[in-house]
């Protein structure tokens, strides 16, 4: 499969967040066949959705990536040039030193491709954050010689590595993430194991992220974790800690796929049918602040991609104030059904 281009590079209509939001508010939602997310959560007394205690600061270091995954909600790829500058990183470090959040979560694109990534990790790791996550796509470790020592670097800074692996078999993984991705991912996981990740007594955590390779929802996270553990151990002698099952949200390239494959309506019905009020209690926007490459603040990574900035006086990292932010209403739209279906979905997996 040839490497795709991002929606942005193709100048596709869906590269516009406004167009995506308009699409998500029309069709089955406009005709009243399905309830708007706002009305659905109002039925269970969850509107307006409010934050709880801030636990996670998630920083997007840039949309550049060595992969172009067909489901990517970031629309990331080699053709995306949006990268967090050192100046914005310095502003983030100020916040990291004073935040009440216990988890720092670096994501992208491929965050490792940011030229200041290593400097930033070194500085941020001095702040004493309890759980320091880097979301690595795995193949970046093998993409270029300069990245080969990333497992050692992660180990040195006690980084908690969270990596995407859509399935434990080659065909589904490569279909979603590109030819050769599975073999490289397996090699990278073995390299992480070799330096001590997910090995007893090291304290080095390696978690995997599963997301369905198509227009269907994930099944029980524990069952999937067990299948992954057995298969990866038997076939490749790979160990990992936990599996996070994540639902694909109907935005960006996954929305494009749903529309092109004529699965959009069925998928939205499936999400709405699986609405779980218990999941609403714990959706990640209630304990997370997402910070974009250019320092703007969002309720979650998905709202970031839809350019829905926080509904607060404080909208940028340069004005950061946790108390003021915690008083906001969370911005919602129909894509939010993705986080409330079944056992719920978040960057940390199931929530209910």
């Amino acid at each position, binding site marked *: 499969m040839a490497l795709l281009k991002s929606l942005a590079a193709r100048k596709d209509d869906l590269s516009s967040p406004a167009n995506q939001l308009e699409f998500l508010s029309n069709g089955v939602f406009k005709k009243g066949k399905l309830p708007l997310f706002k009305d659905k959560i109002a039925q269970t007394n969850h509107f307006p959705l409010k934050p709880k205690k801030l636990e996670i600061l998630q920083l997007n270091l840039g949309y550049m990536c060595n992969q172009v995954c067909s489901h990517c909600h970031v629309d990331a790829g080699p053709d995306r040039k949006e990268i967090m500058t050192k100046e914005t990183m310095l502003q983030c470090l100020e916040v990291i030193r004073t935040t009440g959040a216990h988890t720092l979560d670096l994501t992208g694109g491929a965050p490792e491709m940011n030229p200041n990534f290593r400097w930033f990790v070194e500085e941020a790791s001095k702040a004493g954050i309890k759980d320091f996550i880097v979301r690595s796509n795995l193949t970046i470790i093998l993409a270029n010689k300069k990245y080969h020592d990333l497992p050692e670097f992660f180990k040195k800074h006690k980084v908690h590595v969270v990596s995407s692996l859509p*399935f434990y078999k080659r065909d589904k993984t490569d279909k979603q993430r590109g030819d050769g991705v599975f073999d490289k991912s397996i090699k990278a996981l073995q390299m992480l194991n070799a330096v001590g990740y997910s090995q007893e007594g090291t304290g080095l955590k390696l978690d995997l992220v599963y997301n369905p390779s*198509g227009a269907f929802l994930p*099944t029980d996270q524990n069952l*999937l974790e067990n*299948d992954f553990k057995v298969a990866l151990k038997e076939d490749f002698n790979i160990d990992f800690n936990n599996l996070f099952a994540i639902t694909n949200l109907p935005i960006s390239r996954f929305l494009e796929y749903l529309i092109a494959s004529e699965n959009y309506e069925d998928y939205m019905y499936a999400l709405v049918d699986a609405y779980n009020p218990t999941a609403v209690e714990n959706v990640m926007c209630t304990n997370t602040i997402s910070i974009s490459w250019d320092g703007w603040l969002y309720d979650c990574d998905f709202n970031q991609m839809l350019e829905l900035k926080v509904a607060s006086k404080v909208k940028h990292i340069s004005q950061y104030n946790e108390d003021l932010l915690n008083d906001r209403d969370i911005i919602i739209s129909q894509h939010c059904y993705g986080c409330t279906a079944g056992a719920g979905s978040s960057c940390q997996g199931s929530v209910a």
Partner: protein
Amino acid sequence: MSKTYYDPADLRKFGNISEWNEELGAKFFDYYGKVFEEGALSAREKSLIALAVSHVVQCPYCIDAYTKDGLQRGIEKEEMMEAVHVGAAIKSGATLVHGVQMMNKYEKLSM
């Protein structure tokens, strides 16, 4: 729009059958849900059985539903196709075993 007896969108309305008989509808859906829970057989095994039976009874709604269910459970296409062959083998076997009846009748009627 072409008219057909089967509309894929009707599957979503399956629950509506309770509107015309709430008691029996509720009993059926309770029973259905219970059948597919983890038991002596895993939910995964039950999903594959359901897929095979869906083909044998030639229910398009059931085929859609249990293909999707299998995908969600991480059941692979090779497993799904083998399940379909199990159903097909039983169905064709059920046809062919009647060949014995044909042979019996033939022999009985022949001098």
